[in-house]
């Protein structure tokens, strides 16, 4: 499993130091000295068909319309279709070109979308191998995403819990967990988020050299909850335990409940947040719900993003609310950095 260095999956100290300087600039569109995607947002959820792509696309549009510079990256390698949700033809340049190094920079494969402020990196691949990029390729991609000079890089993740998917999720500032109020989706979402969490444990332990310690501890015992794990680590090595706790506490998915049909469905978001805290001792933020809306599939059929096709639809308003919350949260985050 140890495949080389962990690059920025856990932000290193110097990366963290660099942040405040970026944040200290006015949050408008002034150029920063080192370009950097202000926020990386990834949309995952484990199960297929729960609306990850549509949420990515519509959220991207909502953010772009609020004056944010957004690049949408179709990270569903092998199942890419974001261009379709945006009503675009298959772009000439795609991630394959970047992964195969036909182009050097990720910016070179960004296609215009016809929507101001919004670019698309299509993930549609000709090259089958590119669907499962090697570690180094994935790291290069992540590095380039992190270095893009945009306000938001939005990654549409594939289904499942492949490590490629998890790593994109973990590297994000906002890991958006999509859930549909159905047992199957709930099950997969928990599996996804737990897998992401344990991968983070692994990453943190690699970065700080706790692997042996953890290996020892996990031998013969399986830990259901982070609380137990950290408690045990603390017993062995208080300092490592505290550090681990800090890093794991930063694992904080943002929840979106999609296809909500009743008020009760929407309430479920709060229940999931509460249950996650109760059982796992970890936090999650409920970004909001998106209504189940017939306009949604109608828009998909005509290959037009809902936000453009039916801006007043109930689901569209859900996207708008979530975009507002994200921006507000990020603004206040930057304000906190400045202070």
């Amino acid at each position, binding site marked *: 499993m140890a495949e080389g260095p962990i690059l920025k999956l856990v932000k290193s100290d110097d990366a963290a130091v660099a942040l405040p300087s970026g944040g200290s600039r006015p949050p408008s569109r002034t150029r920063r000295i080192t370009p950097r995607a202000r926020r990386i947002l990834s949309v995952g959820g484990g199960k297929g068909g729960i609306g990850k792509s549509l949420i990515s696309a519509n959220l991207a549009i909502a953010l772009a319309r609020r004056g944010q510079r957004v690049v949408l990256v179709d990270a569903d390698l092998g199942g890419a279709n974001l261009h379709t949700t945006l009503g675009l033809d298959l772009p000439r340049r795609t991630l394959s070109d970047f992964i195969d190094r036909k182009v050097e920079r990720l910016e070179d494969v960004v296609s215009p979308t016809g929507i101001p402020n919004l670019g698309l990196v299509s993930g549609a691949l000709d090259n089958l191998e590119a669907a499962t990029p090697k570690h180094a390729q994935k790291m290069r991609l992540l590095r380039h995403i992190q270095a893009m000079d945009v306000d938001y890089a939005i990654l549409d993740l594939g289904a499942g819990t492949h490590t490629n998917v998890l790593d994109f999720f973990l590297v994000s500032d906002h890991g958006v967990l999509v859930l549909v109020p159905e047992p199957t989706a709930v099950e997969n979402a928990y599996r996804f988020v737990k897998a992401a969490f344990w991968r983070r444990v692994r990453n943190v332990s690699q970065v700080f050299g706790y692997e042996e310690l953890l290996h020892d501890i996990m031998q013969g*015992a399986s830990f259901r909850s982070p609380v137990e794990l950290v408690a045990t680590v603390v017993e062995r090595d208080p300092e490592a335990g505290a550090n681990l706790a800090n890093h794991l506490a930063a694992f904080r998915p943002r929840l979106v409940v999609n296809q909500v049909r009743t008020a009760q469905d929407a309430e479920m978001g*709060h229940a999931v947040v509460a249950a996650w805290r109760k059982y796992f001792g970890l936090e999650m933020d409920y970004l909001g719900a998106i209504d189940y809306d017939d306009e949604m599939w109608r828009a998909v059929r005509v290959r037009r993003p809902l936000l453009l096709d039916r801006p007043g639809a109930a689901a569209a308003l859900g996207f708008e609310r979530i975009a507002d919350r994200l921006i507000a949260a990020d603004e206040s985050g930057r304000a906190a*950095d400045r202070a």
Partner: protein
Amino acid sequence: MKRLSDQTLYEIIEVSAAAAPAEIARACDRAAATYGPGSLATYTLASAEETALLSSRIEEARVVLLDASARSRYDERIGVRPHDAPAPAPAATPLALTPAPVAAAPAPPASTPVPSPPPPPHGAGGRAGQTFTPPPWPPPEVEAVSTEARHSSPGLPVVSQPPPQAAAEPPPASASPQPHAGPPLASLPPPAPVLASGEEASAQPPVAPAPLATRPGGPLPTPAPPVPIALTRAVAPILLENEVAPPRPLLVPDGAVWSGEMLRRVRESRGLTVQQVAERTRITRHHLENIEQDKFKALPAPVYLRGIIMSLARELRLDGQKVARSYLDRMGPVTDAEPKR
């Protein structure tokens, strides 16, 4: 964040230690609905043992915290003075980390039931999710690494104190809650039990709902924490017999005849409306009302009714088998006399 077994009853139901009874009753209902076995939000999230433990602690909270004298004894034991802990408000959450260590203190004096410092942590851990989404929000994840202080806020904080706890936990956890749990079953009035903290381990289980009982194999899987396991193991056997008895004041004699009226009273004592039960059991309101009103003729054939009543009974934390048998026995003559459709 503490392990379930380490959380105070207030933390379990996510209210401040100063909460009024009405608020506590609401919180118990909310917690039962949110974390209960039938909740979609917890589907596959937690193990059966954890779910069972949490359910039992919620019921325990209902029993203990809604009884003024039991509550004051409990408060004393965990070191909360009535007006002490009022402000576990939202803001407290981020701080959880810091207070935690303090909480650890109670541990050592395992034998003595006098942990005084715990109060702060409660507040911190407590408060339901809905309330405070905003505060810790923005900064956390991003530079998590650099700013430890701030980040510590979310979840894990409390964890850091475990070492002391680990050893000590068992006592507080078991000592406090169980006493109560047990008694009601035994048909003792709630208060007395508290003193009997002697047989903690065995005492606690009673409250635990069916789930545990159903999978006796369960307990072992959780290898990590020695303590919890011990508890769970002790629990299982006892459960089997006690399942029947509602942890509430309702003292149901063993040979009780289960009429619709009885079921209604149990439901009401659980603070559940017909609507809520209908939503959770998927039994239609119509059937539920007819069951409670003993409108036998309007009910489906016994073959179907049996299953319906069993799931209703389970929802009310009663022994499904017994209740169904008793109920069907009562209506037996009727249906025989005039076979339905």
